[in-house]
């Protein structure tokens, strides 16, 4: 029983990373119906920015976290401006292929620039273990969970309570109508990319700190899995993405715990197929028009 609960706790931490990433997919999809496949690469860039801020500028973890979130936000906006905005009136498949292209460009650019080797992430926070009854958790795991939850709540507040959030919701319902009402659609979309990218960068840095290893291809698998998480929760729905992330994290941990570690990726993708077959709108999917 203890082992089972410990495994569930493990899954929760893994899930919170997927959840952070899934939020970016869901928001971008919600607002311009684009699956931003370069999102996993923003996560990778976030990890690398953190690496440089801590190693080269000798910043602490939290200043570095904030800086790399800002940096990733800028990169997200630039990618949107250069790669997606010119294609906004084209077919959705054109934008999707461009996104895949951007993803390859970023991976290979980083390999060209820094080499393909794994780099060890600076251990900016001293590792400590806590024993809560029979459950063992480390300060870094707690940090991951707390930062993830804080960012998710903050995001929900931005979307629900601020003017920009209202604009985002308006654009997601009908961009043309929103424009007629005086909303600057381009700026709203840029803002969405900035938010999503900042969250991805935070996830990248947290994972770097947790596993102590970052490399240019690190975004591929988590990127795909958090995309599955976003679809699972109902793509375009923010709480759905968070829920989907946790479900995927738990599912993966349970699969390994049951001794099927070779099939853990297969199980995640099988879940995607099942959810698309029986409930295409996702767990929290409804037929109302509000997205983002």
């Amino acid at each position, binding site marked *: 029983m203890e*082992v089972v609960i410990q495994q569930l706790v493990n899954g929760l*931490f893994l899930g919170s990373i997927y959840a952070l990433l899934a939020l970016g997919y869901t928001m971008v999809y919600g607002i311009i119906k684009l699956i931003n496949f370069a999102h996993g690469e923003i996560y990778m860039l976030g990890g690398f920015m953190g690496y440089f801020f801590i190693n080269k500028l000798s910043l602490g973890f939290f200043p570095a976290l904030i800086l790399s979130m800002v940096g990733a936000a800028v990169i997200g906006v630039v990618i949107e401006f250069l790669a997606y905005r010119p294609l906004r009136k084209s077919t959705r498949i054109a934008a999707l292929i461009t996104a895949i292209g951007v993803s390859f460009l970023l991976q290979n650019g980083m390999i060209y620039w820094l080499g393909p080797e794994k780099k*060890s992430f600076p251990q900016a926070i001293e590792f400590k*273990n806590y024993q809560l009854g029979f459950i063992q958790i480390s300060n870094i795991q707690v940090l991951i969970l707390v930062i993830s939850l804080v960012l998710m709540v903050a995001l929900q507040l931005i979307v629900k309570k601020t003017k920009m959030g209202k604009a985002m919701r308006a654009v997601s319902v009908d961009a043309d109508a929103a424009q007629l009402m005086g909303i600057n659609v381009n700026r709203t979309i840029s803002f969405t990319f900035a938010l999503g990218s900042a969250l991805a960068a935070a996830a990248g840095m947290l994972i770097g700190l947790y596993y102590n290893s970052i490399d240019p*291809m690190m975004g591929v*698998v988590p990127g795909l899995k958090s995309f599955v998480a976003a679809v699972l929760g109902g793509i375009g729905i923010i709480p759905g993405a968070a829920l989907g992330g946790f479900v995927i994290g738990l599912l993966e941990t349970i699969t*390994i715990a049951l001794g099927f570690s*070779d099939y853990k990726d297969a199980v995640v993708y099988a879940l995607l197929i099942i959810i698309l077959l029986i409930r295409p709108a996702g767990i929290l999917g409804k037929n109302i028009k509000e997205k983002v």
Partner: protein
Amino acid sequence: MKKFSFLFASLFLLAACGPTAGGGASGGGNKAEGDTIKIGMNMELSGDVSAYGNAEKEGITLAVEEINEAGGVLGKKLELIEKDNKSENGEATSVAANLTAKDKVVAVVGPATSGATKATIPNMTKAAVPVITPSGTDDSITVVNDKVQEYIFRACFQDTFQGVILANFAQDNLKAKNVVIIGDNSSDYAIGLTKSFKDTFKGKIAKEETFTAGDKDFQAILTKIKDLDYDAIYIPGYYAEAGLIIKQAREMGIDKPILGADGFGDEKLVEIAGAKNVSDVYYTGHFSEKAPATDKVKPFVEAFKKKYDKQPSAFNALGYDSVYMLKQAMEDRDSADSKEITEGLASLKDFVGVTGKMTMDKDHNPEKSAVVLGLTEGKETSADAVNP
């Protein structure tokens, strides 16, 4: 991406296999002409595993310089022709063709990795020019489908041998009766290591868990084994995942000894795991200054330090030995023609190198002892020579 390039590489390999399959050696090999003996180097000097290739190049260059300063081989100087295979199997194949057909080398050293070496087999066999891979440990390099590859040799031991050494080390040195195996299920290297360990180890395998290359989270696996009764953990795999397993295991409070093969032998292992976590960790190495296999080690280390101003690694030593193995083969047969060198390598006996005293067995694998290196807080603190 990786998967795709692998697919292409294997297609390449298959295509290259076609015409030579069943053909065997048809050419007459290359002969040494003029007043130099040309040997080729087919190395990973750029790309994914360039660290290995460049390290071996240092050893090879040093050996060639030493031999030439001492008067060369059979009265002729060695001429080294260096080529980069960019860590790609397809490129290694064309480098092999180039070296044998255009440069007319009498022997080739390299590639460093198993996959690339296997890719060069058809070309080298066709040209009837012998190859020594300094560090390709995959069993199926020298023996394919129970058939010994006539022109393919290696300077290192093979994977199954490492599994045997580690099993012996676990039961004799660590007195382990129960072992947990956490193995990479996605590489031939790790699968071979697991199998030969299980075949040799006399104790019990308390639990066997698997992962795939690229995995990062091992909490679930480690949580499962944490409270089991066992004496050591065996991790057949490469440093990237092994480093993460060591880190996560030690942080979780698992303090049992951890064993691995030469895939641990990279400083990245310690970097990824964090130096303070890497204690009671043992792995097989090809070479150690602390347990010198022969009296050649001291002069080699001194010469290496003088030339490169650093400590030699196992890859430096293996590259260095490969060249001296060629020299001995030429001298034994009193000829520098590729056919004769092949014969010489196949019957190499009691060759004293820096990585051990070796005799070539009938499968073209050198028989030599291995060193098991022990790490404490990330530093090499013990070295035991273990015999098979």
